[in-house]
C-alpha cells in the first residue's frame, strides 16, 4: 500500500459519493456538484494508479490536465443551462415536484 494507491482508492470512494449525490439529490446545482465530485474521483484514479505502478507518469497527468479544463468549461455551461431553465420554468429540479419550487419567482 503506497500513497498513490491510497489516492486511487480515495478516487473510487469519491466516485461512489458523487454517484450517490447524482442519484439522490434533486436540486440541479447539487447534482452538478455531485457530478464534479465524481469527475474528481476519476482524475484521482487516473493520476494515482500509474504513479503507484511506475513513478510519476506525465502522460496521464497531461490527460488529467486536459480533463480538468474540459470539466470547468462543461460545468460553466451546465450552470448557464440551469439558470436558463430556472428562468424559463421557475423550477430547480427536473422532476417538477412542488417541493422543488422553493425560492422560485412568483
Amino acid at each position: 500500500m503506497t500513497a498513490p494507491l491510497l489516492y486511487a482508492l480515495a478516487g473510487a470512494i469519491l466516485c461512489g459519493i458523487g454517484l450517490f449525490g447524482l442519484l439522490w439529490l434533486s436540486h440541479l446545482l447539487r447534482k452538478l456538484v455531485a457530478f464534479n465530485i465524481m469527475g474528481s474521483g476519476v482524475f484521482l484514479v487516473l493520476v494515482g494508479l500509474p504513479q503507484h505502478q511506475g513513478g510519476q507518469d506525465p502522460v496521464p497527468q497531461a490527460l488529467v490536465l486536459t480533463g480538468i479544463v474540459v470539466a470547468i468549461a462543461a460545468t460553466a455551461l451546465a450552470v448557464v443551462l440551469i439558470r436558463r431553465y430556472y428562468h424559463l420554468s421557475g423550477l430547480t429540479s427536473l422532476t417538477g415536484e412542488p417541493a422543488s419550487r422553493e425560492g422560485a419567482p412568483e
Partner: protein
Amino acid sequence: MIRTLKTLAMVAACVSFSGILALSIWTIAGQPAPVNLPQLLSENMARSGVEHPVTAVLLNFRSYDTLLEIGVLVIAGIAGISMAKTASLEDPELRTSDSLLYGLQRWFVPLMLMLAGYLLWAGAHRPGGAFQAGAVLAATGVLMRLGGVPMDFLRPGLLLRLGLVLGFTVFLLVAVASVIGGDAFLAYPPELTKPLILIIESVLTLSIAMVLLALFVSAPVNDAEDPEEGSS
C-alpha cells in the same frame, strides 16, 4: 416507506459501484505496467522541442487530445453565449463604485497579467503552460468584470468570436499544414517545433481565457425576478 427503500437501493448501488471500482484498482495495481510510458517519454524528450514532460505530452506527443479539447471548449463557449441575454452584459447597475476595490484592482490586474505571461513561458521547462495561464487570464477578466471595469470586447461581436476560435483555428491550421506538407496529421517539422509550440500555446491561452470569461459573463447576473431573460 418506498422512499426509504429507494434510498437504501441507491446506497447499495453506490457502495457496490465504489467497491467494484476499488477492487479493479487493487487488481490493476498488483500487476506490473504493460508499457513503461515514463521511460518511453524520457527517451523521446529531445525531439519534443520543450523540456517539461507534461507540456511535451500536451502539445507534441498527444496534441490530438489538446486539439479536440480546445474544440470542446469553443463549442461550450458558443453554446454559453448563445444562451445569454446580451443586454445584461453591460448593465451599469452591476458596476460597483467602490473606490477601494477599484484601487486594489489597479494593482492586481497588471500583476495577474504578468503572472499569466510567466506561466505561459514557464510551461516549456517547469509546471505551467497554456491552461494555467489561460485560467489566470480568465480570473483576471472575472475580477475586472466584478469590479465594474467596462469590457466592451465581451459583447457578442466580431472580437469575441475571433478570440473564441483563434486557438482552435491556429492549431487546426498547423495540423493541416503538416498534412499538406506530406507529413502526418499534427506532425511538426523538426526545426520549427519550439516556435510552433510557443505560438500554439499563446493562442490557446487567449482562447481558453476567452471561453471561460464568456461562460462566466453569460451566466446571467441580473435579477432573478426577471422572467423575460433571453426573450429580447
